[in-house]
């Protein structure tokens, strides 16, 4: 295949999903520069492997490559990996960042506060964070998530449930506020 043609196909099938790739990388690494580096490296990997790519879903294939690249980078940075483990305040049952009780007024303000929601998701352990991002933001099916994260579909289901429980603990929604 001519190089120009290959590049055009790569752009059309793979780079078309660059926003998804960056979004996933940014949520996994929780850092702008790290996400940018991981996406650049991941794109090179995908480019090299592109001729072998088959199947109906280049987006999920690309996201799997990006995710693996991110995990490699996270693994390389041992310090970050250690922080990741101990950052897990939700597992320890600790309260969200401020200890004072959350009032319904707070919730009304906070529910619209994307920064607060982002911080809540960022505080989740990576294994829950990534399935939540893939489901709630990228809106992928369990089957696609199972393929990207390389876990059985049953595990996708249980991780999502657990991740949402953790997120809910943190957000402490007064459900009445949102029923309307």
């Amino acid at each position, binding site marked *: 295949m001519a190089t120009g043609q*290959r*590049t055009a196909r790569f*752009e059309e099938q793979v*780079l078309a999903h*660059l*926003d998804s790739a*960056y*979004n996933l990388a*940014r949520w996994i690494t929780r850092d702008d520069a790290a*996400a940018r580096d991981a*996406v*650049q490296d991941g*794109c*090179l*990997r995908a*480019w*090299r*492997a*592109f*001729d*072998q*790519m*088959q*199947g*109906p*879903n280049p987006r999920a*294939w690309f996201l*799997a*490559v990006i995710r*693996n690249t991110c995990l490699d980078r996270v693994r390389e940075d041992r310090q970050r990996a250690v922080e990741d483990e101990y950052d897990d305040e939700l597992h320890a049952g600790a309260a969200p960042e401020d200890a004072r009780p959350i009032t319904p007024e707070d919730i009304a303000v906070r*529910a*619209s*506060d*994307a920064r607060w*929601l*982002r911080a809540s*998701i960022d505080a989740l352990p990576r294994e829950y964070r990534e399935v939540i991002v893939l489901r*709630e*933001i990228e809106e992928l*099916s*369990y*089957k696609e998530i*199972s*393929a990207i994260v*390389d876990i*059985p579909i*049953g595990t996708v*289901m*249980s991780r*999502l*449930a657990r991740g*949402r429980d953790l*997120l*809910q603990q943190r*957000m402490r*929604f007064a*459900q009445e*506020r*949102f*029923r309307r």
Partner: protein
Amino acid sequence: MNCTLALRVLDAWIDDELDATTAGEVAEHVAGCPACADLRDRRVAMRSALKAASLNHPAPAGLHASILRRIRNVAPAEPTRSAWQWWQMVALGGSTALLGALGGWWIAQPQATDGLPEQAVARHVASLMPEGPRIDVASTDRHVVRPWFQGRIDFAPVVRDLSAQGFDLVGARLDHLGGQVAVAVVYRLRNHAINVFSWRVLGNAAEASRPATIRGFNVVTWSESDINFAAVSDTDKAELDRFTAAYRRP
């Protein structure tokens, strides 16, 4: 349906990932159960808050262009057959065999209806990443590999030194097959990875010894006592048979 069951699949139900029959049963239960309905409401509320917050991190301006600039300077992976280069190439993420496996990753995702040989091939393919076969305990010494599983599984995995026959032990990892925890012992023959999966037989589902070729990979399954085995590799059938014979009876 009771609460325990409903809660297990509630998220899948909200995500519209259940078959119609189960979904109907969950809906019926939730309609009559305040506790489950409460959780459903909280989930729905959380979802609307997440949707309203637009949490997406878009790619920064210029990233697309900078990636295009970089890939223009990088040639696609060239096929390589040189055996000694294999680990180097694996480290660089450039091995043809492994990239092929990564590309074939799609068709290799296990389907609900797949038999165990198909699932074994899928797990084999999933283990072959550009960085090399996935391994939890890397060692060429079976006296290191075998004890690693103590306390992690409820049977003693078969780990043999087959280097005399040309099969080098690479390591092992915990995996899953047929919905169960499985051991994967990894060997290398020249530039081919071989995964040997073993997992406990449940009920009377002992696998008859049979070879198969699935999606270009050779598979041999058999069972011994109450353990199922599946050996998978992209090496040819004769070599895999030789491996299986050696692994079963050194």
